[in-house]
């Protein structure tokens, strides 16, 4: 169970190796990595800027993680979320969940992602040729929370 909020990049392989190292009771490990997506053409972006609320962010992520650990039999979990200015293709964040069985690991990872999307205090600004614009929250992301109630 760990949460990290950082400007620096992370290495998925290293993080996962650390999570499972020495624990032979893990049967299933799920990871999600979010990347800066550049659609090119008229929507081409040169950078994604991530602003957050430092005093609140870690606590919000820890609460989301604790909720996942209360719902599923997780042996390990990890949330890393970056902030600052990121290039297209850069890693934005990752979650990892480890459990005896795959169902729990998948469900917990999806749960973490659904809550991170709408309940973690981050805001994204896309920089493109025509200037910059704040990314709107998607209604589908808010709706995705309902499946966990």
């Amino acid at each position, binding site marked *: 169970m760990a949460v990290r909020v950082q400007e620096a990049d992370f290495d998925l392989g290293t993080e996962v190796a650390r999570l499972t190292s020495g624990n032979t009771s893990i049967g299933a490990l799920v990871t999600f990595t*979010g990347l800066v997506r550049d659609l090119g053409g008229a929507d081409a972006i040169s950078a994604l800027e991530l*602003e957050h609320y430092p005093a*609140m962010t870690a606590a919000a992520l820890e609460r989301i993680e604790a909720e996942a650990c209360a719902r599923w039999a997780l042996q390990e979990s990890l949330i890393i979320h970056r902030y600052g200015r990121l290039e297209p293709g850069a890693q934005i964040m990752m979650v990892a969940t480890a459990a005896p069985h795959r169902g729990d690991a998948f469900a917990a990872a999806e749960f973490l992602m659904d809550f*991170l999307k*709408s309940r973690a*205090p*981050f*805001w994204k600004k896309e920089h493109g040729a025509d200037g910059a614009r*704040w990314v709107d*929250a998607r209604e589908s992301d808010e709706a995705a929370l309902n499946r966990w109630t």
Partner: protein
Amino acid sequence: MRVLYFAWIRERIGLSQEEVSSDAATVADLVAELRAREERYDLAFSDMASVRVAVDQELAGLDAPLDGVREVAFFPPMTGG
């Protein structure tokens, strides 16, 4: 009380945080006070459906009481992940 602004609310107001002396009983009262101050605040809070609030770093509603509160933050819907 410290008041924080994030994302386009920060940009519209032109500040990321400020100290505010207020007797506002609720978040809604505080918003009304701020809007009355200057047009940039009025503009930032013109569509409260697009504004989220945290009181002492916990998500809260516009009716949240401000008694004893040290920090209020205003921001658009979050876009993490």
